[in-house]
């Protein structure tokens, strides 16, 4: 068993997403800059160690930049609109007088260190959540995740797959049409130009989707299953209802002001409904799956490390999770949460190594002479 987990292969995309989601949940519950920085370091290291060579694997740095932008915007907004009072004044902006009906809002004024830090911590929390999403994107391709969708979501998955294929083709079509317009010596600008490009591109996309629909029909997509209509309806209701419940519960988990019922209880109920829907959908006959990504020990372990980190942060002391900025206190590093996060770093080794392209090995008894010898002989 242990050997088969170590053979080079791609980890199940669901495992990476669960791991990253757990870290994102951990990030959402703390504003401690040290813990947040640790989470960024962990995602960065694991991505560097286990990202495949696909076009998506570059997405981590893009999400990192979006995260930095989130911090910058948050701090800039605070500086403009002011907010928390403080004793350490960094600088004073001129106050812009506003009409009396905007009495609650202030534009300009003193900028305190306390306020800047509070804004930065808050922005960092959002930025780190972006990093976690970026890590999941870089570690798996969205297509492989779609491939492992449960049977109940099959049709939705196909629709997304087809839509994903549209983008690169539209880009190619725009390039072709632009050179075609130059061939006709036309140099439109602005709206006319967009109209001239958009209509043929959309026409082409429409034609392509009709062709694709014909090809899918001819290859057996949507063959009559043996499932009765009532079961299909039950599957759809359970799956959709469960997913909606889970989305609603995530709001409760992130916002501590929300009523308690929206948090964990709703999450559990939603997960149960979705699982029931998936189980019903899986029983629907008629389709099979080619080389599905296996879910083995390594997948369980990766998910477990993510959960361990999330739990360790969630149960941490409230004071350390949200360090005070008024009065100004240096953030501390809570031991339990830190150890939990270190566990989440282990997928960099737990996850099986990535498959590489086969090296070209010339066997010693190969009849083909090495290139150098040919060169010398001639």
């Amino acid at each position: 068993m242990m050997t088969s987990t170590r053979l080079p292969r791609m980890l199940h995309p669901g495992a990476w997403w669960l791991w990253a989601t757990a870290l994102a949940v951990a990030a959402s519950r703390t504003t401690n800059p040290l813990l947040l920085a640790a989470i960024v370091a962990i995602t960065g290291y694991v991505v560097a160690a286990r990202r495949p060579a696909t076009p998506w694997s570059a997405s981590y740095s893009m999400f990192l930049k979006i995260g930095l932008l989130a911090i910058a915007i948050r701090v800039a907004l605070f500086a403009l609109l002011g907010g928390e009072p403080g004793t350490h004044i960094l600088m004073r902006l001129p106050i812009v007088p506003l009409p009396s009906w905007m009495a609650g809002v202030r534009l300009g004024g003193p900028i305190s260190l306390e306020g800047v830090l509070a804004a930065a911590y808050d922005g960092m929390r959002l930025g780190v959540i972006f990093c976690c999403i970026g890590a999941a994107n870089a570690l798996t391709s969205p297509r492989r995740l779609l491939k492992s969708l449960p049977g109940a979501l099959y049709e939705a998955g196909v629709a997304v797959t087809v839509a994903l294929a549209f983008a690169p083709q539209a880009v190619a079509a725009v390039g072709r049409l632009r050179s075609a317009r130059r061939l006709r010596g036309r140099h439109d600008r602005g709206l006319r130009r967009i109209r001239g490009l958009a209509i043929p591109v959309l026409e082409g996309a429409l034609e392509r989707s009709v062709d694709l629909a014909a090809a899918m029909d001819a290859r057996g997509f949507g063959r009559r299953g043996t499932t009765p209509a009532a079961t299909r309806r039950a599957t759809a209701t359970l799956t959709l209802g469960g997913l909606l419940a889970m989305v609603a519960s995530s709001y409760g988990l992130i916002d501590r002001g929300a009523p308690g019922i929206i948090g964990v209880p709703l999450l559990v109920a939603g997960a149960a409904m979705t699982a029931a829907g998936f189980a019903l959908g899986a029983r629907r006959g008629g389709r099979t799956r080619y080389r599905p990504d296996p879910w083995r020990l390594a997948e369980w372990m990766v998910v477990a490390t993510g959960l361990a980190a999330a739990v360790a942060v969630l149960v941490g002391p409230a004071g350390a999770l949200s360090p005070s900025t008024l009065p100004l206190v240096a953030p501390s590093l809570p031991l339990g949460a830190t150890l939990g996060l270190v566990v989440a770093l282990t997928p960099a080794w737990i996850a099986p190594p990535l498959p590489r392209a086969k090296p070209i090995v010339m066997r010693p008894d190969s009849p083909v002479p090495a290139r150098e010898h040919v060169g010398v002989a001639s």
Partner: protein
Amino acid sequence: MISFEDVTVSYPDTTRPAISNVSFEIGEGELALVIGPTGAGKSTLLKCVNGLVPHFTGGRLAGRVMVADRDTRTSPPRELADVVGYVGQDPLAGFVTDTVEDELAYGMESLGVAPGVMRRRVEETLDLLGIPDLRARHLLTLSAGEQQRVAIGSVLTVHPKILVLDEPTSALDPPAADDVLAALTRLVHDLGMTVMLSEHRLERVVQHADRVVLVHATGVTVGAPADVLIDSPVTPPVVDLGRLAGWSPLPLSIRDARRAATALREELLPLAVPARGSSAGPDTVAQVRALVVAYDGVPALRGVDLAVHRGEIVAVMGRNGAGKSTLLASLAGLRKPMSGTVSATERVGLVPQEPGDLLWAQRVAEECRDSDRDAKVVAGTTRALLADLAPDVFDEQHPRDLSEGQRLSLVLAVILAAGPGLLALDEPTRGLDYPTKQRLIAILKRLARDGHGVLIATHDVELVAEIADRLVVLAEGEIVNEGPAREVAVSSPIFAPQVAKVLSPLPFLTVRDVETALVTRP
């Protein structure tokens, strides 16, 4: 295996049915070739076999189509997917997934084939089509020939009894087309599969066919290839030569024709090859010197020197990706050279590979008006040119509804309106039937006589034999062979047209050459 019983298909808002009174039967293990002029209804007929007509396309189907004892009226395409594999004209448009392996498995997943069986069949199919190295590749990175073989493989994995292909080799260079056809004949001979395919370039496939279905306006003619081709409106050059020489039975392959041609070769030996009336003048219209063009650092052209003269027709050949299109695009100013020069004394007009890209109006009349405005010429210029090139195109038609030949004429009119000195055409004969091709040849010859330079990038050796004064062969972005078309074509086994192969070593290239020589015989 397949039987059509008095089938007529008509679409709403059309005056005549797409196909009418079609009756024939195809037995198990036969390779049936569907031929006919453009617009005769070949695609419609093929789509009837797996029920896409009428279940997907709409329209009315009278009569009955039986496929492996199933009636297509009651079985829609998805329920026939286990017996009929259908590959459409553009393989790329039919791909559902993104890698070769997934694409091969897609049909089996829909049919619910057991995972172990799926795994085995994917491996077998990769070997059968000779594409095991491509298994992990992204479909968009494949060459046209590889894409076509993957498309065939993707329907083979479900082990259908019948394979239907709509013009499987029309976009391929000759070696890639041979690969695809070799794979198909292997399926017929080794696996006993029934194959039905349509094709314009008959010279490639007709010798492999067991039966030919000729589609015409009032029905179909079905029979052995030699019997049907003897009075078919579309024929490959080797059959034209056989008809001219009166050989019986009509030879379909080069091998058969060479055996029959012994007497003809002796008769032609003392006769002079008719001189090709070239109108090439001394003035250069466009010229490239030491041209280097690269895409993202990968060179597509590595130091090409070429000049086209007034009144001259130059053909550029070479495999897919050899740099033909890049050369044309650079001449038209669409690609910036990395080094070297492009100089044109007059405007260069380029007809791209997808001529439809140049058309975007809703009616032919609007298209002509736009064209006059773009080219800044007197109103009516484009319409007059079009009337000259294709008298059967009407103002009210939508450019998309035109036939391939009519659309090409419209694009030619649009390009010619700007008065180019050099006309460059990228793969102009793709999808054209023989009569339309003959009209294009006449048009291009006339343009050359009027003093235009003409540059054609093509895979079509028969077109080159008919029209080119000079032939340039590109490989890996370099010119590897250049000279008078007759000499280059006769000396090369790949670029030789059928007539040259039959009459080798005599330097006759076309049936017309032979005809003219025989007339001048003392």
